[in-house]
C-alpha cells in the first residue's frame, strides 16, 4: 500500500464562505482501499471537506484529485464517487428497487444488467426481500442500507459517508459499525467517513484526520491518535485526559525533566524536542489509585475523592488533587467486591508510570 498512488489527493485546500474560513489549507492523501475518517467537533469543516470531494462545494483555493484526475470544474454527476447522506435522502416516491436502480438508469445501463446489479447490491446489505417496499415502510436502519446499496451499486472509486450512524439508536449503531467495516472489506472500495464520534472513528477507520476549526491537527491510525496525540486538542478530543501545565526544565538522553505547576519536578521519557510551556497528561485508565503512598519510580499525586461515576464495567473516580487540577481515574470493576472501596471524601493517591505520560507541546 505504501507504493500505491493515493486515490484521493487533497492539496492545500481552503474553503471560504463569505469571510468565514470553513476549511483552511488542508492537505490529505487517502490510499486506495483505505477506511479513512474525518473526525472533529461540529463546525470543524469536515462535512465541507466531504462535500468538496462529492462536488457540492467548490474549493476557494487548492486542488483535489480523485483517482489521478483533477476535480476542478467536474460536476457531482461526473465524479467517480458516491455519497451516503446524513439524512439518507432515499427517494420517498420510489420503491427500494427503483432507488437502487436510479443511478444505473440515469447513466444508461442496460435494463437486464440493472436488475442483476440491483439484486446483488441489495443482498450485500441484506435487503433482498425488500425491493418492492416504499421507503416509508422501512425502519431507519433499513433506509440507511438502501442508501448504502444505492451508492455501492454504482461501483464508485470512493464511497463518501456523511455521519452515517448519527440517526440510529445506540445498539443499532454498534452493529452498523461492524457492518460497515465488513462491507468495506467485501467491496474493497475506499471509504471516507465524516463523524464527530471518536469511538466511531477509532473502531472503524484505518486512519483518521482530526480537524479543528478548519485545520487538520493530526492524521494517524487510531491507536497512534490515542497513545501519541500531537496536541492537547487531539488528546482531549480522542478520549478523556488529565492535564497539568508544566515548564521544561532540562532534557537529556530520551528523558525530560519538567517543572509541574503545584507538584514540583518530574522526570518523564520524551524523545522529541520541547521547550518552554508544555502540558503533561495521562489517560484516566492508565492511572492507579491507592491508600498508601506509592513507591519510587512513579508519578504520584495526593487527592480527595469528590465524585464517583459508576458505569457497570468500570467507574470514573473524580479527585481534587493537590495541584488544584481535577483528575479522573478509571478503575475496572473486575470483581463484585472491589479491593479498593472508594467513597466521596476519601484521601487517596493517584499515580502512573512515567512512560504513560503524554508530553503535549501546544
Amino acid at each position: 500500500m505504501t507504493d500505491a498512488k493515493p486515490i484521493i489527493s487533497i492539496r492545500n485546500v481552503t474553503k471560504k464562505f463569505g469571510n468565514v474560513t470553513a476549511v483552511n489549507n488542508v492537505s490529505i492523501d487517502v490510499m486506495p482501499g483505505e477506511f479513512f475518517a474525518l473526525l472533529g467537533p461540529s463546525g470543524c469543516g469536515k462535512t465541507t471537506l466531504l462535500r468538496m470531494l462529492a462536488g457540492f462545494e467548490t474549493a476557494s483555493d487548492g486542488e483535489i484529485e480523485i483517482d489521478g484526475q483533477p476535480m476542478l470544474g467536474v460536476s457531482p454527476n461526473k465524479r467517480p464517487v458516491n455519497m451516503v447522506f446524513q439524512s439518507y435522502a432515499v427517494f420517498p416516491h420510489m420503491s427500494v428497487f427503483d432507488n437502487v436502480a436510479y443511478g444505473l438508469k440515469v447513466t444508461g445501463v442496460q435494463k437486464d444488467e440493472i436488475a442483476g446489479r440491483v439484486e446483488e447490491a441489495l443482498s450485500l446489505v441484506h435487503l433482498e426481500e425488500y425491493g418492492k417496499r416504499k421507503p416509508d415502510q422501512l425502519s431507519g436502519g433499513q433506509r440507511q442500507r438502501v442508501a448504502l446499496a444505492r451508492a455501492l451499486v454504482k461501483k464508485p472509486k470512493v464511497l463518501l459517508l456523511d455521519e452515517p450512524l448519527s440517526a440510529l439508536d445506540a445498539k443499532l449503531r454498534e452493529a452498523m459499525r461492524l457492518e460497515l467495516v465488513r462491507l468495506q472489506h467485501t467491496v474493497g472500495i475506499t471509504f471516507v467517513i465524516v463523524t464527530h464520534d471518536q469511538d466511531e472513528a477509532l473502531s472503524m477507520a484505518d486512519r483518521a484526520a482530526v480537524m479543528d476549526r478548519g485545520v487538520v491537527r493530526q492524521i494517524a491510525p487510531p491507536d497512534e491518535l490515542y497513545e501519541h496525540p500531537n496536541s492537547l486538542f487531539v488528546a482531549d478530543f480522542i478520549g478523556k485526559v488529565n492535564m497539568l501545565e508544566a515548564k521544561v526544565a532540562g532534557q537529556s538522553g530520551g528523558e525530560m525533566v519538567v517543572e509541574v505547576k503545584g507538584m514540583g519536578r518530574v522526570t518523564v521519557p520524551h524523545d522529541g524536542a520541547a521547550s518552554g510551556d508544555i502540558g503533561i497528561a495521562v489517560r484516566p485508565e492508565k492511572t492507579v489509585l491507592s491508600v498508601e503512598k506509592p513507591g519510587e519510580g512513579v508519578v504520584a499525586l495526593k487527592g480527595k475523592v469528590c465524585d464517583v461515576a459508576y458505569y457497570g464495567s468500570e467507574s470514573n473516580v473524580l479527585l481534587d488533587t493537590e495541584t488544584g487540577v481535577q483528575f479522573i481515574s478509571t478503575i475496572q470493576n473486575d470483581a463484585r467486591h472491589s479491593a479498593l472501596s472508594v467513597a466521596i471524601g476519601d484521601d487517596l493517591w493517584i499515580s502512573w508510570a512515567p512512560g504513560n505520560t503524554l508530553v503535549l507541546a501546544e
Partner: protein
Amino acid sequence: MEDWRKNKLAFMVFMGPATFWLLVFFTIPVVAIWVYSFGERGPLGQTYLAFSFDNYLRAIEPIHLKILWKSIWIGGLSTFLCLLIGFPVALGIAFAPDRWKNPLLLVVVLPFFTNMLIRTFAWIVVLGSRGVVNSGLGWLHGQADWLLGFAGLPDVMGQFTPLEMLHNNYTVIVGLVYVHLPFLILPLYATLEKLDRSYLEASLDLGAGQWRTFFSVLAPLAMPGIVTGCLLVFILSMGNFLVPDRLGGTDSMMIGNLIAQEFSKARDWPFGAALSFVIMYPVFIFFAINALMMRRRERVRAEA
C-alpha cells in the same frame, strides 16, 4: 400534557367559532342553492320550491355544454400557463438566499393589494387600441418611417394600424393567468421550501443531470404543491366572470358569466343554481374519491 382533543370543553371552545362560521355562511347557503336548483322560476323571477330536474336538463343543453366546455379549456390552458410561468418563479424564490425570500414573496402577492377590478381594467390600458403597447409600437413605427425617409425610402411603412389585442379568448387567458399566478406560486413555494435539498444532491451524486433530476426527483416530490396550486388556479379560472366580462369578446362567455347572468339580469335563480351544481358535483366526487384513496393508503401503511 393532556391531549386537548380529549378535553371536550376546550375542543368546543376552539372549534366552535370556525364551525359556526362555516355552517352559517357556507353550508347553509350552499344547501339553499342546492334546493333552489330543483325549483322553478316564477313569471316575475320569483323562485318557487319544487322537485323538478328541468333546470338540470336545460343546463346540459348543447349551447350550455359548449360554454362549460369552453370554460374548461380556457381554465385548463390558463392553469398550464400558470404552471409554466409559476414553477420557475417558485423554484427561484425557494432557492434564493434567506434574506431575499420575504421581499420576493411580497412582490408575488403585491398585486393583491389592488382591487381585482382595477387590475383587470389595467389590462385594457395596456392592451387597448390606444393603450401602452400600441402607443409604443406606434412610436417605433414612426421612428422607423422617419429613418427610412432619410435612406430615401419614404412611405414604405405605410400608416400604423393599432393591433387588435383586446376582447378575444387570448386576452381572457392572459388576464386569468395574471390574476391567478400567485395562487400557484404560493403553495408550490411552500412545498419546494420544505423539500430536503439532499434529495437533489443525491440525484446528482448518482449521475443524473440537472434535467433528469428535475423530472425524476424534484417534480415528483413537488407534486403536492403542483396539484394544490393547479386545482386552485383551475377552479378560480373556470369560475371567474370578471376577466372574461371585461377582457373577453362576444364569444368569450364562460360558465361564471352565464351563472352571474342567470342570478342577476335573467333573474332565473333555479337555473343559475343548477348550472352552479353542474360544476360542483364533479368537485364533490373528486374529493370523495380522494378521501377514499387516502384512507386506503393509510390502511396499507398500517398493515405494513
